[in-house]
Protein backbone atom coordinates (compact mmCIF):
# COMPACT_ATOMS: atom_id res chain seq x y z
CA UNK A 1 0.00 0.00 0.00
CA UNK A 2 1.41 3.33 -1.03
CA UNK A 3 1.18 6.51 1.05
CA UNK A 4 1.71 9.97 -0.41
CA UNK A 5 3.50 12.84 1.30
CA UNK A 6 1.27 15.85 1.88
CA UNK A 7 1.02 18.79 4.25
CA UNK A 8 -1.60 19.19 6.94
CA UNK A 9 -2.57 22.81 7.59
CA UNK A 10 -4.45 23.59 10.78
CA UNK A 11 -5.89 27.05 11.33
CA UNK A 12 -7.42 28.21 14.61
CA UNK A 13 -9.43 31.35 14.04
CA UNK A 14 -12.50 33.18 15.23
CA UNK A 15 -15.74 31.86 13.79
CA UNK A 16 -16.47 35.32 12.40
CA UNK A 17 -13.51 35.28 10.05
CA UNK A 18 -13.66 31.63 9.02
CA UNK A 19 -15.69 32.52 5.90
CA UNK A 20 -12.97 34.98 4.86
CA UNK A 21 -10.33 32.29 5.34
CA UNK A 22 -12.34 29.74 3.36
CA UNK A 23 -12.67 32.22 0.53
CA UNK A 24 -8.91 32.75 0.61
CA UNK A 25 -8.38 28.98 0.61
CA UNK A 26 -10.44 28.69 -2.55
CA UNK A 27 -8.44 31.46 -4.16
CA UNK A 28 -5.22 29.74 -3.19
CA UNK A 29 -6.45 26.61 -4.96
CA UNK A 30 -7.22 24.25 -2.08
CA UNK A 31 -9.37 21.37 -3.29
CA UNK A 32 -11.03 20.78 0.08
CA UNK A 33 -11.21 21.73 3.74
CA UNK A 34 -13.03 20.66 6.89
CA UNK A 35 -14.10 22.88 9.78
CA UNK A 36 -14.20 21.59 13.35
CA UNK A 37 -15.83 23.26 16.36
CA UNK A 38 -13.99 24.37 19.49
CA UNK A 39 -15.45 24.59 22.98
CA UNK A 40 -13.23 27.01 24.82
CA UNK A 41 -9.70 28.26 25.07
CA UNK A 42 -7.36 30.86 26.39
CA UNK A 43 -4.56 33.08 25.18
CA UNK A 44 -3.11 36.55 25.35
CA UNK A 45 -6.62 38.03 25.27
CA UNK A 46 -7.92 36.01 28.20
CA UNK A 47 -10.15 32.95 28.24
CA UNK A 48 -13.29 32.32 26.23
CA UNK A 49 -15.91 29.63 26.14
CA UNK A 50 -18.72 29.07 23.73
CA UNK A 51 -21.94 30.74 24.68
CA UNK A 52 -25.12 31.70 23.00
CA UNK A 53 -24.66 35.30 23.98
CA UNK A 54 -21.96 36.19 21.62
CA UNK A 55 -19.94 34.35 19.05
CA UNK A 56 -17.43 37.16 19.23
CA UNK A 57 -14.63 35.11 20.72
CA UNK A 58 -15.77 31.69 19.49
CA UNK A 59 -12.92 29.88 17.71
CA UNK A 60 -13.10 27.17 15.07
CA UNK A 61 -10.47 24.97 13.48
CA UNK A 62 -9.98 24.68 9.73
CA UNK A 63 -8.16 21.61 8.49
CA UNK A 64 -6.68 21.38 5.00
CA UNK A 65 -4.66 18.59 3.48
CA UNK A 66 -2.67 19.73 0.48
CA UNK A 67 0.46 19.01 -1.54
CA UNK A 68 3.64 20.67 -0.20
CA UNK A 69 3.65 23.23 -3.01
CA UNK A 70 0.03 24.14 -2.59
CA UNK A 71 0.51 24.31 1.17
CA UNK A 72 3.21 26.92 0.73
CA UNK A 73 0.89 28.87 -1.53
CA UNK A 74 -1.94 28.64 0.96
CA UNK A 75 0.22 29.82 3.83
CA UNK A 76 1.40 32.77 1.75
CA UNK A 77 -2.12 33.67 0.63
CA UNK A 78 -3.56 33.46 4.15
CA UNK A 79 -0.72 35.19 5.96
CA UNK A 80 -2.17 38.72 5.86
CA UNK A 81 -5.49 37.53 7.27
CA UNK A 82 -3.72 35.44 9.92
CA UNK A 83 -1.72 38.46 11.00
CA UNK A 84 -4.59 40.93 10.89
CA UNK A 85 -6.99 38.76 12.85
CA UNK A 86 -4.36 37.16 15.10
CA UNK A 87 -5.27 33.63 14.08
CA UNK A 88 -2.99 30.57 14.29
CA UNK A 89 -1.73 28.62 11.29
CA UNK A 90 0.34 25.48 11.80
CA UNK A 91 1.72 23.17 9.09
CA UNK A 92 2.88 19.58 9.57
CA UNK A 93 3.84 16.52 7.52
CA UNK A 94 1.35 13.76 6.83
CA UNK A 95 1.06 10.78 4.53
CA UNK A 96 -2.25 9.99 2.87
CA UNK A 97 -4.02 7.26 0.98
CA UNK A 98 -5.61 8.59 -2.23
CA UNK A 99 -2.84 11.07 -3.08
CA UNK A 100 -4.61 12.22 -6.23
CA UNK A 101 -7.58 13.50 -4.23
CA UNK A 102 -5.61 16.50 -3.00
CA UNK A 103 -4.61 19.44 -5.18
Amino acid at each position, binding site marked *: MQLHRKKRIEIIAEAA*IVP*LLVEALHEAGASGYTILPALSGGGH*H*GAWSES*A*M*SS*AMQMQMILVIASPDLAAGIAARLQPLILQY*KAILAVSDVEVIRGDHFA
Partner: protein
Amino acid sequence: MFDAAAANLLSPMVLFFVLGLLAGLAKSDLTIPEAIAKGLALYLMLAIGFKGGVAVAESGLGGDLVGLIVVGVALSCLLPVLAFAGLTGLCRLDRVTAAATAAHYGSISIVTYVTADSFLRQVGTSFNPGMVAVAALMETPAIVVGLLLARGGAAFRGGALRGGLWRETLLNGSVVMLVGSFAIGWITGPKGMEAVRAFALDPMKGVLMLFLLDMGLVAARRLREANKLRAPLLLFGVAMPLVSAAIALTLATLSGFAAGDAALLATLAASASYIAVPAAMRLALPEADPGIYITLSLAVSFPFNIVAGIPLYLAAAEFLAR
Protein backbone atom coordinates in the same frame (compact mmCIF):
# COMPACT_ATOMS: atom_id res chain seq x y z
CA MET B 1 -41.46 53.20 42.63
CA PHE B 2 -40.49 50.92 45.48
CA ASP B 3 -43.45 48.75 44.65
CA ALA B 4 -42.29 48.53 41.06
CA ALA B 5 -38.76 47.70 42.11
CA ALA B 6 -40.03 45.00 44.44
CA ALA B 7 -42.36 43.60 41.78
CA ASN B 8 -39.39 43.39 39.46
CA LEU B 9 -36.99 41.93 41.98
CA LEU B 10 -39.46 39.32 43.13
CA SER B 11 -40.51 38.15 39.68
CA PRO B 12 -39.33 34.62 38.86
CA MET B 13 -37.47 36.02 35.82
CA VAL B 14 -35.23 38.34 37.78
CA LEU B 15 -34.78 35.80 40.56
CA PHE B 16 -33.56 33.21 38.08
CA PHE B 17 -31.16 35.76 36.66
CA VAL B 18 -29.80 36.36 40.15
CA LEU B 19 -29.58 32.60 40.71
CA GLY B 20 -27.48 32.34 37.55
CA LEU B 21 -25.23 35.20 38.66
CA LEU B 22 -24.69 33.65 42.07
CA ALA B 23 -24.12 30.15 40.72
CA GLY B 24 -21.64 31.51 38.18
CA LEU B 25 -19.75 33.59 40.70
CA ALA B 26 -19.59 30.60 43.06
CA LYS B 27 -18.15 28.57 40.15
CA SER B 28 -20.97 26.03 40.16
CA ASP B 29 -20.74 23.72 37.17
CA LEU B 30 -24.32 24.51 36.23
CA THR B 31 -24.39 25.26 32.50
CA ILE B 32 -27.03 25.42 29.84
CA PRO B 33 -25.94 23.85 26.55
CA GLU B 34 -25.06 26.46 23.97
CA ALA B 35 -27.56 25.08 21.46
CA ILE B 36 -30.38 25.32 23.98
CA ALA B 37 -29.52 28.89 24.88
CA LYS B 38 -29.36 29.84 21.19
CA GLY B 39 -32.71 28.16 20.67
CA LEU B 40 -34.24 30.06 23.58
CA ALA B 41 -32.87 33.34 22.21
CA LEU B 42 -34.35 32.65 18.79
CA TYR B 43 -37.64 31.73 20.42
CA LEU B 44 -37.75 35.00 22.35
CA MET B 45 -37.15 37.03 19.19
CA LEU B 46 -39.80 35.08 17.32
CA ALA B 47 -42.30 35.44 20.16
CA ILE B 48 -41.78 39.12 20.85
CA GLY B 49 -41.78 40.00 17.15
CA PHE B 50 -44.83 37.92 16.37
CA LYS B 51 -46.74 39.26 19.36
CA GLY B 52 -45.93 42.83 18.34
CA GLY B 53 -47.06 42.20 14.79
CA VAL B 54 -50.33 40.64 15.91
CA ALA B 55 -50.94 43.56 18.26
CA VAL B 56 -50.42 46.02 15.42
CA ALA B 57 -52.83 44.01 13.25
CA GLU B 58 -55.38 44.24 16.05
CA SER B 59 -55.07 47.82 17.17
CA GLY B 60 -53.38 49.53 14.25
CA LEU B 61 -50.15 51.49 14.21
CA GLY B 62 -50.41 53.93 17.07
CA GLY B 63 -50.14 57.56 16.03
CA ASP B 64 -46.85 57.92 17.87
CA LEU B 65 -45.06 55.10 16.14
CA VAL B 66 -43.37 57.26 13.50
CA GLY B 67 -42.20 59.63 16.20
CA LEU B 68 -40.92 56.72 18.30
CA ILE B 69 -38.99 55.36 15.35
CA VAL B 70 -37.42 58.72 14.56
CA VAL B 71 -36.36 59.30 18.14
CA GLY B 72 -35.14 55.69 18.51
CA VAL B 73 -32.98 55.78 15.41
CA ALA B 74 -31.63 59.19 16.37
CA LEU B 75 -30.63 57.78 19.76
CA SER B 76 -28.92 54.84 18.10
CA CYS B 77 -26.84 57.31 16.06
CA LEU B 78 -26.09 59.85 18.79
CA LEU B 79 -25.47 57.74 21.88
CA PRO B 80 -22.30 56.15 20.42
CA VAL B 81 -20.76 59.62 20.00
CA LEU B 82 -21.42 60.37 23.64
CA ALA B 83 -20.13 56.97 24.75
CA PHE B 84 -17.02 57.44 22.63
CA ALA B 85 -16.30 60.78 24.25
CA GLY B 86 -16.66 59.26 27.69
CA LEU B 87 -14.54 56.22 26.91
CA THR B 88 -11.65 58.10 25.34
CA GLY B 89 -11.85 61.14 27.61
CA LEU B 90 -12.69 59.78 31.04
CA CYS B 91 -11.74 56.10 30.77
CA ARG B 92 -8.65 56.72 28.57
CA LEU B 93 -9.48 53.80 26.30
CA ASP B 94 -7.68 53.59 22.93
CA ARG B 95 -9.58 55.08 20.01
CA VAL B 96 -10.52 51.84 18.25
CA THR B 97 -11.67 49.91 21.31
CA ALA B 98 -13.60 52.98 22.45
CA ALA B 99 -15.35 53.24 19.10
CA ALA B 100 -16.22 49.54 19.10
CA THR B 101 -17.58 49.77 22.64
CA ALA B 102 -19.54 52.90 21.79
CA ALA B 103 -21.30 51.05 18.98
CA HIS B 104 -22.58 48.49 21.50
CA TYR B 105 -24.23 51.20 23.59
CA GLY B 106 -25.96 52.74 20.62
CA SER B 107 -27.43 49.41 19.66
CA ILE B 108 -29.86 47.44 21.86
CA SER B 109 -30.31 44.17 23.75
CA ILE B 110 -33.49 42.42 22.75
CA VAL B 111 -33.61 40.33 25.93
CA THR B 112 -33.57 43.49 28.00
CA TYR B 113 -36.43 44.69 25.85
CA VAL B 114 -38.40 41.46 26.34
CA THR B 115 -37.87 41.68 30.10
CA ALA B 116 -39.13 45.26 30.13
CA ASP B 117 -42.13 44.28 28.01
CA SER B 118 -43.12 41.55 30.44
CA PHE B 119 -42.49 43.86 33.39
CA LEU B 120 -44.78 46.54 31.95
CA ARG B 121 -47.53 44.00 31.37
CA GLN B 122 -47.14 42.73 34.89
CA VAL B 123 -47.57 46.18 36.44
CA GLY B 124 -50.30 47.00 33.94
CA THR B 125 -48.69 49.82 31.99
CA SER B 126 -49.72 49.88 28.35
CA PHE B 127 -47.47 50.77 25.41
CA ASN B 128 -47.46 51.00 21.66
CA PRO B 129 -47.53 47.48 20.17
CA GLY B 130 -45.23 48.63 17.37
CA MET B 131 -42.46 49.30 19.88
CA VAL B 132 -40.74 46.07 18.92
CA ALA B 133 -40.23 47.53 15.44
CA VAL B 134 -38.45 50.46 17.04
CA ALA B 135 -36.20 47.96 18.80
CA ALA B 136 -35.37 46.22 15.51
CA LEU B 137 -34.58 49.52 13.80
CA MET B 138 -32.27 50.59 16.59
CA GLU B 139 -30.09 47.49 16.31
CA THR B 140 -27.81 48.51 13.48
CA PRO B 141 -27.31 52.25 12.89
CA ALA B 142 -24.87 52.39 15.80
CA ILE B 143 -22.56 49.97 14.01
CA VAL B 144 -21.95 52.43 11.18
CA VAL B 145 -21.44 55.28 13.64
CA GLY B 146 -18.94 53.18 15.57
CA LEU B 147 -16.95 52.48 12.42
CA LEU B 148 -16.90 56.17 11.54
CA LEU B 149 -15.62 56.98 15.01
CA ALA B 150 -12.85 54.39 14.68
CA ARG B 151 -11.74 55.09 11.16
CA GLY B 152 -13.18 58.43 10.18
CA GLY B 153 -13.92 58.74 6.49
CA ALA B 154 -11.59 55.83 5.83
CA ALA B 155 -14.36 53.58 7.09
CA PHE B 156 -16.09 54.01 3.76
CA ARG B 157 -13.04 53.91 1.54
CA GLY B 158 -10.97 51.25 3.22
CA GLY B 159 -11.74 47.80 4.45
CA ALA B 160 -13.98 48.32 7.42
CA LEU B 161 -17.27 48.48 5.59
CA ARG B 162 -16.29 46.05 2.88
CA GLY B 163 -16.99 42.42 2.47
CA GLY B 164 -19.50 40.61 4.59
CA LEU B 165 -19.99 43.54 6.91
CA TRP B 166 -22.97 45.15 5.29
CA ARG B 167 -24.71 41.84 5.16
CA GLU B 168 -23.61 41.01 8.70
CA THR B 169 -25.13 44.30 9.76
CA LEU B 170 -28.35 44.53 7.81
CA LEU B 171 -29.21 40.87 7.54
CA ASN B 172 -27.91 39.70 10.86
CA GLY B 173 -29.97 36.91 12.34
CA SER B 174 -31.61 38.80 15.16
CA VAL B 175 -32.82 41.62 12.92
CA VAL B 176 -34.21 39.17 10.36
CA MET B 177 -35.92 37.14 13.08
CA LEU B 178 -37.45 40.17 14.77
CA VAL B 179 -38.56 41.97 11.64
CA GLY B 180 -39.69 38.77 9.94
CA SER B 181 -41.75 37.62 12.92
CA PHE B 182 -43.23 41.08 13.30
CA ALA B 183 -44.26 41.11 9.65
CA ILE B 184 -45.73 37.62 9.83
CA GLY B 185 -47.64 38.49 12.98
CA TRP B 186 -48.99 41.57 11.26
CA ILE B 187 -50.04 39.59 8.16
CA THR B 188 -51.67 36.69 9.97
CA GLY B 189 -53.12 38.74 12.80
CA PRO B 190 -55.22 37.30 15.64
CA LYS B 191 -56.12 34.25 13.58
CA GLY B 192 -52.48 33.34 13.20
CA MET B 193 -51.95 33.93 16.90
CA GLU B 194 -54.80 31.63 17.76
CA ALA B 195 -53.16 28.81 15.79
CA VAL B 196 -49.80 29.10 17.54
CA ARG B 197 -50.44 30.83 20.87
CA ALA B 198 -49.71 27.69 22.93
CA PHE B 199 -46.21 27.85 21.48
CA ALA B 200 -45.54 31.48 20.66
CA LEU B 201 -47.32 33.32 23.46
CA ASP B 202 -48.21 31.30 26.56
CA PRO B 203 -44.77 29.92 27.50
CA MET B 204 -42.92 33.17 26.76
CA LYS B 205 -42.38 34.36 30.31
CA GLY B 206 -41.23 30.93 31.37
CA VAL B 207 -38.76 30.74 28.52
CA LEU B 208 -37.49 34.19 29.45
CA MET B 209 -37.00 32.91 32.99
CA LEU B 210 -34.83 30.00 31.87
CA PHE B 211 -32.96 32.22 29.44
CA LEU B 212 -32.20 34.77 32.13
CA LEU B 213 -30.77 31.98 34.26
CA ASP B 214 -28.32 31.34 31.46
CA MET B 215 -27.62 35.05 31.04
CA GLY B 216 -26.72 35.19 34.71
CA LEU B 217 -24.36 32.24 34.35
CA VAL B 218 -22.73 33.72 31.27
CA ALA B 219 -22.39 37.19 32.77
CA ALA B 220 -20.73 35.77 35.88
CA ARG B 221 -18.39 33.61 33.81
CA ARG B 222 -17.50 36.61 31.66
CA LEU B 223 -16.69 38.62 34.78
CA ARG B 224 -14.42 35.85 35.98
CA GLU B 225 -12.75 35.20 32.63
CA ALA B 226 -12.18 38.83 31.78
CA ASN B 227 -8.81 40.34 32.37
CA LYS B 228 -9.61 42.76 35.14
CA LEU B 229 -11.71 45.75 34.14
CA ARG B 230 -10.41 48.94 35.70
CA ALA B 231 -12.77 50.91 37.96
CA PRO B 232 -13.51 53.75 35.49
CA LEU B 233 -14.71 51.19 32.95
CA LEU B 234 -16.93 49.44 35.47
CA LEU B 235 -18.38 52.81 36.36
CA PHE B 236 -19.00 53.53 32.69
CA GLY B 237 -20.98 50.28 32.43
CA VAL B 238 -23.45 51.59 35.01
CA ALA B 239 -23.36 55.30 34.24
CA MET B 240 -23.84 55.04 30.51
CA PRO B 241 -27.23 53.26 30.75
CA LEU B 242 -28.39 55.94 33.20
CA VAL B 243 -27.24 58.77 30.93
CA SER B 244 -28.76 57.12 27.85
CA ALA B 245 -32.04 56.55 29.64
CA ALA B 246 -32.12 60.14 30.86
CA ILE B 247 -31.60 61.47 27.35
CA ALA B 248 -34.24 59.11 25.96
CA LEU B 249 -36.72 60.13 28.64
CA THR B 250 -36.07 63.81 27.96
CA LEU B 251 -36.69 63.38 24.23
CA ALA B 252 -39.76 61.26 24.96
CA THR B 253 -41.19 63.89 27.28
CA LEU B 254 -40.53 66.65 24.75
CA SER B 255 -42.25 64.51 22.12
CA GLY B 256 -45.19 63.84 24.43
CA PHE B 257 -44.93 60.06 24.29
CA ALA B 258 -46.97 58.01 26.77
CA ALA B 259 -45.23 56.75 29.92
CA GLY B 260 -45.08 53.13 28.75
CA ASP B 261 -43.54 54.11 25.42
CA ALA B 262 -41.07 56.41 27.13
CA ALA B 263 -40.02 53.68 29.55
CA LEU B 264 -39.41 51.21 26.73
CA LEU B 265 -37.50 53.81 24.72
CA ALA B 266 -35.34 54.49 27.75
CA THR B 267 -34.77 50.77 28.22
CA LEU B 268 -33.68 50.41 24.60
CA ALA B 269 -31.37 53.41 24.88
CA ALA B 270 -29.88 52.09 28.11
CA SER B 271 -29.37 48.56 26.86
CA ALA B 272 -26.24 47.52 25.00
CA SER B 273 -25.89 44.87 22.29
CA TYR B 274 -23.99 41.65 22.99
CA ILE B 275 -24.89 39.60 19.92
CA ALA B 276 -25.01 41.53 16.67
CA VAL B 277 -22.52 44.30 17.40
CA PRO B 278 -19.66 42.18 18.80
CA ALA B 279 -19.81 39.97 15.71
CA ALA B 280 -19.63 42.98 13.42
CA MET B 281 -16.83 44.58 15.41
CA ARG B 282 -14.62 41.48 15.38
CA LEU B 283 -14.74 41.58 11.60
CA ALA B 284 -14.44 45.29 11.05
CA LEU B 285 -12.21 46.37 13.92
CA PRO B 286 -10.12 43.32 14.76
CA GLU B 287 -7.64 45.41 16.77
CA ALA B 288 -10.34 46.46 19.26
CA ASP B 289 -10.29 44.38 22.44
CA PRO B 290 -13.39 42.17 22.74
CA GLY B 291 -12.57 41.51 26.39
CA ILE B 292 -13.60 45.13 27.06
CA TYR B 293 -16.73 45.53 25.05
CA ILE B 294 -18.33 42.15 25.65
CA THR B 295 -17.64 42.26 29.36
CA LEU B 296 -19.00 45.78 29.71
CA SER B 297 -22.21 45.19 27.82
CA LEU B 298 -22.92 41.62 28.93
CA ALA B 299 -21.55 41.46 32.45
CA VAL B 300 -22.04 45.00 33.71
CA SER B 301 -24.75 46.93 31.86
CA PHE B 302 -27.05 44.00 31.18
CA PRO B 303 -27.35 42.91 34.85
CA PHE B 304 -27.76 46.54 35.90
CA ASN B 305 -30.65 47.07 33.51
CA ILE B 306 -32.40 43.82 34.39
CA VAL B 307 -32.15 44.15 38.13
CA ALA B 308 -32.40 47.89 38.72
CA GLY B 309 -32.71 49.81 35.47
CA ILE B 310 -36.08 48.74 34.11
CA PRO B 311 -38.24 49.65 37.15
CA LEU B 312 -36.23 52.86 37.53
CA TYR B 313 -36.85 53.93 33.95
CA LEU B 314 -40.56 53.21 34.31
CA ALA B 315 -40.77 55.16 37.56
CA ALA B 316 -39.01 58.11 35.96
CA ALA B 317 -41.20 57.92 32.87
CA GLU B 318 -44.34 57.93 34.98
CA PHE B 319 -43.05 60.81 37.04
CA LEU B 320 -42.26 62.85 33.92
CA ALA B 321 -45.60 61.99 32.33
CA ARG B 322 -47.54 63.44 35.23
